């Protein structure tokens, strides 16, 4: 069982790629996914599956990374299913909203976008060690240092936030279950009651998060972490492999552009 944001050491071609290549590929993928047409959906899905396969990510592991966000995925699907106007497929007479053809397609599309983005990010964190990830982000943000933005600090902070996110999601899930077992109800009752139920979730979530943050700060201090310019054990360098990966992403972008131009 792996989690979103976890690193699994390995020796696949995806593991050995330069972190900058992997980060830029995810950025490019997020732009492609954002505006994907039906043909592109098939193309991008195939590409994601191929990369996940090359990284030796099993289907069970892929499903595992989607598990913490499954409730949210179901919710965005249902919202689009019921609240999109168009040709009705099914009416739910007493309830507001209806299932339309457009709603069904829109729901599938938005859910696919979300799952695709999560999987792309999961492959990145699964195959890139924390120090490589920080190094890669730092190099990409370095131009910002010239205008006074601390790129090194930002890179470390993004890497920390990436590891905080799955922890917070799990903690939230645990708290929600615990509160529901004690009879908490977020869907009925007066506004004041429901607001109090939200506070009863948020306060313990924040308190446990503060404890983890303090522990992390102490652990980093104890290991002698200092801010400011740093050197890395492994200097980043592009290899033929990385250029090949860039070429693959370039072909993907080109293919989607050509598809779009010919469709017009």
């Amino acid at each position: 069982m792996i989690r979103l944001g976890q690193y699994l050491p390995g020796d696949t071609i995806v593991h050995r790629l330069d972190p900058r290549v992997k980060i830029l590929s995810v950025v490019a993928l997020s732009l492609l996914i954002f505006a994907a047409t039906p043909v592109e959906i098939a193309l991008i899905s195939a590409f994601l599956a191929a990369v996940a396969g090359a990284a030796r990510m099993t289907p069970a592991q892929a499903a595992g990374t989607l598990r913490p966000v499954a409730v949210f995925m179901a919710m965005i699907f249902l919202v689009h299913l019921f609240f999109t106007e168009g040709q009705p497929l099914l009416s739910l007479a007493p309830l507001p909203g209806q299932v339309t053809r457009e709603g069904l397609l829109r729901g599938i599309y938005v859910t696919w976008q979300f799952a695709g983005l999560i999987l792309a990010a999961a492959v990145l964190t699964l195959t890139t060690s924390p120090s490589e990830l920080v190094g890669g982000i730092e190099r990409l943000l370095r131009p910002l240092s010239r205008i006074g933005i601390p790129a090194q600090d930002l890179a470390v902070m993004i890497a920390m936030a990436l590891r905080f996110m799955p922890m917070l999601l799990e903690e939230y899930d645990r708290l929600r279950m615990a509160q529901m077992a004690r009879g908490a109800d977020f869907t009925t009752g007066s506004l004041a009651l429901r607001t109090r139920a939200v506070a009863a979730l948020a306060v313990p979530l924040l308190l446990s998060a503060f404890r983890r943050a303090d522990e992390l700060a102490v652990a980093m201090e104890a290991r002698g972490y200092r801010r400011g310019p740093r050197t890395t054990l492994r200097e980043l360098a592009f290899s033929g492999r990385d250029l090949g990966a860039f070429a693959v992403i370039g072909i993907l972008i080109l293919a989607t552009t050509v598809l779009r131009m010919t469709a017009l």
Partner: protein
Amino acid sequence: MNTEQTSLRGMVYASLFGALTAVGAYIIIPLPPVPITLQTLFLGLAGTLLGGRLGALSQVVYLLLGIIGLPVFAGGKAGLGVLFGPTGGYLIGFVAAAFVIGKLAALKARPGFAWLCLSLVAGTAVVYALGVLQLSLVARLAPVKALAVGVLPFLPGDGIKIVLTAWIALKLRDRIGGKFP
């Protein structure tokens, strides 16, 4: 505590609040008329608990998480496309709002409930000002129309969240272990 230790702690807390704002997009509470997410709750807490500079930094971390491709923007979206799209102004507004909330709250040595609410109202206004500006520019909506679709439905939920944020901030500010430099 020397300054270097505190600033490392400040960095850790800013990334924590970046991650909280991201995760907040997935926490949907069904409150009428429009379901609310906890994003702006964590945005408000970042400003009030961390101060203006660190609060804004936490929201920069949040934006960068989304730019890298994590689906952390509202509705599970990601990427630069969202930032430059019709709703991108709200996201850019998060950074400015955290700064404004933090600076306003810090005007008083130990702000009370009313002052915190006031700072949060100002922060919410900043989010909407930038959000509606970009909405009307990118989607070519008349400002009045943009106001009607981009602000009004969310105001009741925002009111509740402002009160809740101020209340939680008062409860937690002593647990966070003093001010950050």
